């Protein structure tokens, strides 16, 4: 089959690889009908996530048709249309039972690697480094889905792929960011990063009762995605002083909830940007925490900073004193996909969430490598790429 494979920093290729097979009794094989490139795939593309191996198949946002199931999968059959969560969960361990699916104890075959770095291992992920399982991803014609009796969500007939594809990651991720921010009536929510996750976090924040959302980015195509939405104001961080503007926009209080939808490859301005660039380049810091620092400083006293943006390693110059002094609550982590997929499918069916406006490019799988470059370089007003095998 054809698959998009990682070959090193900035080197992604279309390769011909063997078809996947059933390896475990709870596996299914899915014929991919649509897959997308995630902003977090760019962290792999840019070489910021350790333990990638040359030849790994990429992709963790995908959906398709079940073509084969393992002996223990009884809820799916050949021909079912499914959307697959990017986190892999066994459904039986302490964490799965506790609704903390992305912390599953039993889905990472390389748990020891994650334990070395983080103490304990979260769940395995599709196409996202060997430390997080080393599972072959879904930017391919076929993909093997472990614990297929637990994860995949059957798509009701009549719903086009594009409406439900983002249930595989970015919609639940944006939604969880807003849900974990603990939004209350009258709240102003500041969202850093208006990429797809930020876009869905903004929609979710409004759905969950935010009075107002302030969106922060610098790319016109991203800002224009959200500018027209009712209750949303935008800040271009290259043209404005973010902290001062946020203070003015909130009558001197600061935003009640802050969402960092950027993560480890943040861009900033001025000295701090240079500082992070240098430290990251010489590996004294693995992640650039520009946005996180700003969110901690901007947030009102007693507020919440919610972090859907990915961090992988070490950061410094984090104003922990600001977080402590203002009594902030910090929420973060990979998305507990299985918790949100069904309720969000219902919201899509009810027309409450716009899932398709974010797509800027629809391309065949073969054009994946070029699409990675375009998405990274933000060329051609690229906000989200959907690939069709």
């Amino acid at each position, binding site marked *: 089959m054809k698959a998009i494979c990682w*070959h090193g920093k900035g080197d992604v290729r279309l390769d011909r690889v063997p078809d996947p097979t059933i390896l*475990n*009794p709870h596996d299914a094989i899915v014929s991919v009908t649509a897959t997308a490139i995630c902003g977090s795939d760019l962290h792999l593309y840019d070489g910021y996530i350790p333990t990638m191996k040359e030849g790994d198949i990429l992709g963790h946002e995908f959906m398709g048709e079940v073509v084969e199931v393992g002996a223990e999968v009884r809820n799916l059959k050949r021909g079912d249309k499914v959307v697959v969560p990017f986190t892999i969960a066994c459904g039986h361990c302490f964490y799965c039972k506790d609704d903390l699916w992305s912390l599953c104890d039993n*889905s990472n075959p390389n*748990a020891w690697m994650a334990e070395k770095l983080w103490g304990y291992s979260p769940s395995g992920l599709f196409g996202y480094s060997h430390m997080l399982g080393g599972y*072959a991803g879904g930017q391919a014609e076929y993909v093997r889905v472990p614990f297929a009796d637990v994860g995949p969500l059957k798509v009701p007939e009549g719903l086009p792929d594009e409406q439900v594809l983002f249930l595989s990651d970015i919609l639940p991720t944006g939604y969880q960011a807003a849900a974990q921010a603990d939004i209350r009536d009258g709240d102003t929510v500041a969202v850093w990063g208006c990429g797809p996750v930020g876009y869905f976090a903004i929609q979710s924040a409004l759905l969950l009762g935010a009075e107002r959302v302030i969106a922060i980015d610098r790319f016109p195509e991203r800002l224009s995605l959200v500018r027209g939405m009712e209750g949303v104001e935008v800040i271009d961080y290259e043209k404005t002083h973010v902290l001062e503007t946020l203070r003015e926009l909130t009558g001197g209080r600061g935003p009640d909830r802050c969402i960092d939808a950027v993560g480890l490859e943040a861009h900033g301005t001025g000295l701090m940007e240079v500082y992070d660039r240098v430290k990251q380049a010489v590996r004294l810091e693995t992640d650039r925490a520009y946005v996180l620092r700003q969110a901690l400083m901007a947030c009102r006293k007693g507020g919440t900073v919610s972090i859907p943006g990915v961090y992988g390693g070490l950061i410094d110059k984090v104003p922990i004193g600001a977080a402590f002094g203002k009594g902030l609550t910090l929420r973060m982590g990979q998305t507990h996909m299985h918790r949100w997929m069904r309720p969000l499918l219902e919201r899509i069916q009810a027309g409450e969430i716009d899932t398709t406006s974010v797509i800027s490019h629809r391309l065949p799988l073969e054009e994946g490598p070029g699409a990675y470059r375009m998405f990274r370089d933000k060329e051609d007003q690229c906000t989200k790429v959907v690939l069709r095998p």
Partner: protein
Amino acid sequence: MHYSTTDLARDSRGWEQPSKPVSLSRLDTALRAAAIVGGGALAISALGRLMGGGSPRDGVWAALGGALAVGGASDFSLRGGEPRTRRLEASVTVGLPRDEVYRRFRGEGGLPRFGLFTHAQDRGPQRVPGLPVNVSWEGDVVEEEEGRRLVWASRDEADVVHVGAVVFRDAPERRGTEVHVILDFRPPGGALGAAASKALRPVLDELMRRDLRRFKALSEAGEAPTTEGQPSARRAEDEGAWRAELDARDDDWRTA
């Protein structure tokens, strides 16, 4: 063997009082770590050059690096005498009732099947998968308290004389059962073997933990996670023969 099984049985009951830690100064620890890492890296790179047809000087570097690493890894038992017994410990929590966890661990045949140090009379000598050398033994269950504790010992002719104990304890509320394993072994090969076993310590620890994780996954989820055999744009990786052995054992655990 000289090591008393009752010593270990007593230890395994005394979990509330962990065994006395080895006292090493921080400087000592750092120096040793530096010697192991630096010496090992030196030896490996020099060996690499040697194999690629390097100069005699590479041989000296390799020997020097090796000596440094072994020196750092040893606890100076090179001075001679009986190599001391080494202890490995690992634990995992399995989200099932204690009796069931015990039954799965013990297995249908009534023999413990803890991967790394499994022994079974009906299977003949057992080999440790994942180690660079062939180590085999036969052993017997020497003490058993149903649902709580299992102690086994290698027979005298074993390559590695050892005593192992597994203790099963109820975990708090909803959390299932804690499985604690302690394994005391006497490294073979005198002082050199002792040094090697010390250097191998992280590997042995990881093998124990890996086995416990697999046991947990098979017990809770009905399968151990794997990516063996999945496609990639690489040539078939060298997976090591022990994978097949693990799979054979997994079948036992799955059906237990």
